[in-house]
Every structure is written in structure tokens, then in C-alpha cells.
């Protein structure tokens, strides 16, 4: 049965009207612009001032990092409830190790007869201590994240919700145990610089330096790296694939467990960077840091247009989601709106954002 003239399978494609494409792609950015415009009109003297914008950028830095890690996890249709607690644990270990290393060396220095040892307060010693302490903080975040990943990939717990809820309690409890529940204050400037430092760009006419805070620069750099990783690397593409269909990914030979472990590890890693920035800003490690912030991180990701079903969302969307939350809180503060109403507003926006995703899925016929 040779059919030389096989009929070409004809195909009809649903074309999206351009308006829908526009809203689909830039809707969230438009929402941010509208929000900023309204706030600029309502609070013309303060809202767009450099001091205020710098303030928002500084305040949003921690949330931005936690949301970025959370975004990766949500891309795989997972969730990480432990980010706030992991941040606190990482922060306490950073602060505690700084102090104990310093105390140990100071004791050693006092006992030692040798005059050639550098002083405990010397830049060399403080830098060494800081580097080790920051490394400890990073390893803590990445390590706890990896353990979270194992909860799904090795223990095969029914949902990452369970594992990370457990980890939330474990990390928070460990933080209190380690610190005795009290903050550890006073950090060398080599640690503080990331959270509290400024980058001086140029001198203005009045002789003052035009500077930008370091924290948002670190945030933007991290976002750029993650964006590049997600869009340009195989592993990044596999994260989207696993989120879209774990089964299809498995059949296609994607190492799904490796993808999941990586994602939770990176989420712990961003929590550790957030810990570094927060420790710098507050010049301390305090055990109650980031209580409940995991919910804000999830909210920012959802507002940023990522789908809770996994597989959909962008790094830039998450960034805008963080900014919307940051500007909304800031703007409502400037307008003297009660904190309670701010929570109501943010809650309504979360629901609206999730509903937009539902509509989008329905439109794309992906239900």
C-alpha cells in the first residue's frame, strides 16, 4: 500500500488577538506603572523622591531574594515554606560564628607571646573572619535547601509543603536553640557592607556623593544571573519542563530529581544571601528574623504572574511582583493608610493575580 500522495495533515492554530498577547506579556508591568503613577499623583512630594525610592529598594531587597528562590520552586509546582526560617538560621550562624571566631582569636592573641600576630581588630583578621562566616551562612542555606529537595526526591513525601513545613519548624527551633532566643549584635563592616553599604558613583554639584545602596545592586545582579541561567542553560529549560510535566520530562530523559534538588538548593541559597543583607542592615543576627515572610515571598511570585500549577512565569515578573508589594506598602504608608488595610489590599491582589492565571489557562485551553 504505497500512497505517494499522502495528504498533508492540515492544522488550525488558535491565534491570540494582539491585545491579549500584550496583556499576557506586559500586564503585570502595566499594573506596576499604573500603581506608581497613582502613588506619584497622590503623594507628589515624597513618593518619587530619591530618599523614598532608596528606602523601598533597601526594604524590598530581602523579600526580592526570597521571592526569587521561591519562584524557582513554584516553577516546578512546588513550594518552600521554610525560606524565612532558613534565612534566620543562616543569619544567626553567620553572626554567631563571627563572634566566636573573634573571641577565640582575641583569647589566643592575648595569650600568645609572639608580637608578629596581627591584632584582632586588624583588617586582615576581620576580613578572614567575615569570609568564613559568610561561607558558613551560604553553606547553611544551600545545605538546608538540598535537604528540602531530598524530602521530595528521596523520602518521596507527598508534597514539598510537608517537607518545608517541617523544615520551617526545625530551622526556627534550631535558630532559637543556637542563639538562646536572643539577638547577636555587632558585626564587622566586612559583613555589613553587603546589607548596609553604599556604592558612591559620582560627586554632585553640592559636593555630596551620589550613591546607591549596595543591597539592591546585589539583588539585581542575582536576578540577572538567575534569568540567564533559566533561559540559556539546559538545566534552566529543564526546570520549566519539570514544572510543565514531570512525567514528560522523565520520559524525555531529564533527571527530574536532580532538577528538584537543584531548585530547592538554590532557594536555600537565595535565603542565605537575604540573610547576609538583613544581617548587614540590622548589624545583628536575630532569631525572629523573617517570621511569616515566606508567605510574602509566595505572594510576590504569584502577583508576578507565575502559575501555581508550575511551568509558567518569568524572573522579571517576579521582580515586578516584589516591587508591586513594596510600593503598595510604601505608598499606603505615605498616604497614612492603616497597616491593616494594607494587608487587606495585598490579599485581594494575590487572589486577583491567581485568578488572572486561571483565566489565562482557560484561554490557552490548558486546563
Amino acid at each position: 500500500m504505497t500512497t505517494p500522495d499522502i495528504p498533508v495533515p492540515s492544522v488550525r492554530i488558535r491565534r491570540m488577538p494582539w491585545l491579549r498577547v500584550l496583556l499576557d506579556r506586559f500586564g503585570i508591568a502595566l499594573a506596576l506603572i499604573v500603581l506608581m503613577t497613582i502613588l506619584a499623583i497622590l503623594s507628589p512630594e515624597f513618593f518619587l523622591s530619591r530618599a523614598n525610592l532608596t528606602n523601598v529598594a533597601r526594604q524590598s531587597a530581602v523579600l526580592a531574594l526570597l521571592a526569587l528562590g521561591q519562584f524557582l520552586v513554584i516553577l516546578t509546582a512546588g513550594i518552600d515554606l521554610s525560606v524565612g526560617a532558613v534565612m534566620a538560621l543562616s543569619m544567626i550562624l553567620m553572626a554567631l560564628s563571627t563572634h566566636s571566631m573573634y573571641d577565640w582569636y582575641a583569647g589566643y592573641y592575648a595569650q600568645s607571646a609572639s608580637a608578629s600576630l596581627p591584632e584582632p581588630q586588624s583588617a586582615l583578621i576581620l576580613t578572614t573572619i567575615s569570609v568564613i562566616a559568610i561561607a558558613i551562612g551560604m553553606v547553611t542555606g544551600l545545605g538546608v535547601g538540598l535537604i528540602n529537595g531530598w524530602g521530595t526526591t528521596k523520602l518521596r513525601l507527598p508534597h514539598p509543603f510537608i517537607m518545608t513545613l517541617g523544615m520551617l519548624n526545625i530551622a526556627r527551633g534550631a535558630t532559637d536553640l543556637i542563639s538562646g532566643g536572643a539577638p547577636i549584635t555587632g558585626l564587622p563592616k566586612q559583613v555589613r557592607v553587603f546589607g548596609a553599604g553604599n556604592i558612591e558613583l559620582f560627586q554632585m554639584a553640592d559636593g555630596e556623593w551620589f550613591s546607591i545602596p549596595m543591597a539592591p545592586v546585589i539583588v539585581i545582579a542575582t536576578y540577572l544571573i538567575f534569568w540567564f541561567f533559566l533561559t540559556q542553560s539546559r538545566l534552566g529549560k529543564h526546570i520549566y519542563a519539570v514544572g510543565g510535566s514531570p512525567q514528560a520530562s522523565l520520559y524525555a530523559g531529564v533527571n527530574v530529581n536532580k532538577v528538584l534538588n537543584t531548585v530547592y538548593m538554590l532557594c536555600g541559597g537565595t535565603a542565605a544571601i537575604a540573610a547576609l543583607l538583613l544581617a548587614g542592615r540590622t548589624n545583628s543576627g536575630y532569631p525572629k528574623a523573617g517570621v511569616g515572610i515566606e508567605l510574602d515571598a509566595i505572594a510576590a511570585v504569584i502577583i508576578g504572574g507565575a502559575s501555581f500549577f508550575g511551568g509558567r512565569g518569568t524572573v522579571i515578573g517576579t521582580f515586578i511582583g516584589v516591587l508591586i508589594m513594596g510600593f503598595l506598602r510604601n505608598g499606603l504608608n505615605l498616604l497614612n493608610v492603616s497597616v491593616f488595610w494594607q494587608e487587606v489590599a495585598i490579599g485581594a491582589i494575590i487572589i486577583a493575580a491567581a485568578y488572572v492565571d486561571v483565566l489565562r489557562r482557560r484561554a490557552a485551553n490548558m486546563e
Partner: protein
Amino acid sequence: MSEATGPVIEMQGIVKTFGPIQALRGVDLQLDRNEVLGLVGDNGAGKSTLMKVLTGVYQPDSGKIFLNGSPVRFESPHDSRQAGIEMVYQDLALAGNLNVAENIFLGRERTRSYLVGLFRLLDHKGMVREASALLERLRIEIESVKFLVGTLSGGQRQAVAIGRSAGFEAQVVIMDEPTAALAVREVGKVLDLIEVLKEHKVGVILISHRMQDIFTVCDRIMVLRQGTKVGDVPRADTSMDEIVALITGAQEQLLPREQEVA
């Protein structure tokens, strides 16, 4: 890459048991290049198990597998895919949130080295180009490989899934109920695609409950019943009634003379 004569796949005396259940009791299978073999049987007759043995999902308890005449042993689906044996899954194993090109290259993305091999980055353009060429070669008409798979119809998705498996160096494509979930008018397109694969010298094993499909595209039909091969006959020499009788056991067996069992 392979000699042009002899069967591309030969399975001999495959036995597979799961605890007390004997799923396969010494099954032989032969597939020529550019042949479409229909594999039929009731639920639980061992079709899927046999294919899982062939693709390395299961390891047989005994029996041999030859690929182009040389013995092979597949420890995992990855091994069999490396050897050019591809499986198209019943449940349309595609990621709806990725586009056609990304799905076709899923798990085997093309990359390019940058900075003396320090970075390996995705070759987006190359993949789009190759995916378009593949679809064209297989006469699968989709306007753009940049469309999200989630927006395609069931038939188009099945075509992409088959195209993806037939992909690049496939010698054998196994399809498990490729038309089960499709609208009637889309079934024909998938069957046409099977013909195109045959033209491209790809051996196809088609598992289906739809006798019309089997009789439309298959060159030979193999029947399994309770883990035993009870039928192996060219399509031209048989009828639907006879195949159904073999499946249900109304007829004992229909095999080439040398394979008959007393």
C-alpha cells in the same frame, strides 16, 4: 550507521515474571526496518510488558534481544534511546508549557560552547531550525515550532510526540495506543504519519485496540494472549475476525509453521 539487511529488532524467548505472575512466557518478536508491526492482545496479555522489556524499563528474566543482529542489553530507557529505540507514550508525554521545538529537543537540547567551553548555552536558533526541518521531513504541518504545545489540538500533539520520537536517529518507534485519545478526523493524520515513518526506513511497532487502525497501516500482526505469542501473520493473509478470535482465544494459534507449538 547500520547494515541494511536482516531484522532491525529480534527478541528471542523473552520471559518476565512479577512474583507469582508470569507476564511473558518466552515471547519472540521480529521487526524489519521499514515494517509496521501491529501488536495486539487483551488487557494484561503482555504487550506493554514486552515493550517495556524492549525499551529497558524492565529487564527480562531470560531471553535475548538483538539490534541489527548484535546482542544488546538495555539497563534503562536511556540505553534503548541511545540505541535508537523510541517510545511514544499513550498519555501524550509532552510539556504543554513549552513550545514545539523545546519539546522536540527536551532532554537532548543542542548547546554551544562559550569562553573555551566554560559555558554551555542553549542553541535556541539551531533547535528551532532543526525542529522545523524535522516536521517538514515528516510532513507534519504546524505553522511555527514556536507555538506552545498546550495550544495545539490532540492530533497535533500526538504528531509532535511521534515526530519527537522519530526524531533524529530513531531506528524503531514504538507507539502505545497513539490514536486512543483522538477525534476521528485526527486519527487518519496519525496513521498517515506512520506511513511517512515507514518511508524513512523506520521500523514501527503499533500497539492498538482499534482493529481498523491495525489493518490500515500494519504490514504484519502479532497477537499475544496470556504472555504467549499466539499469532504472527502478514496482514494480507488474515482478517479482523481471525485476529479477534486469536485475541479472545476462540482460535488457538496462527503462527508461521516453524514457530508452531504443539
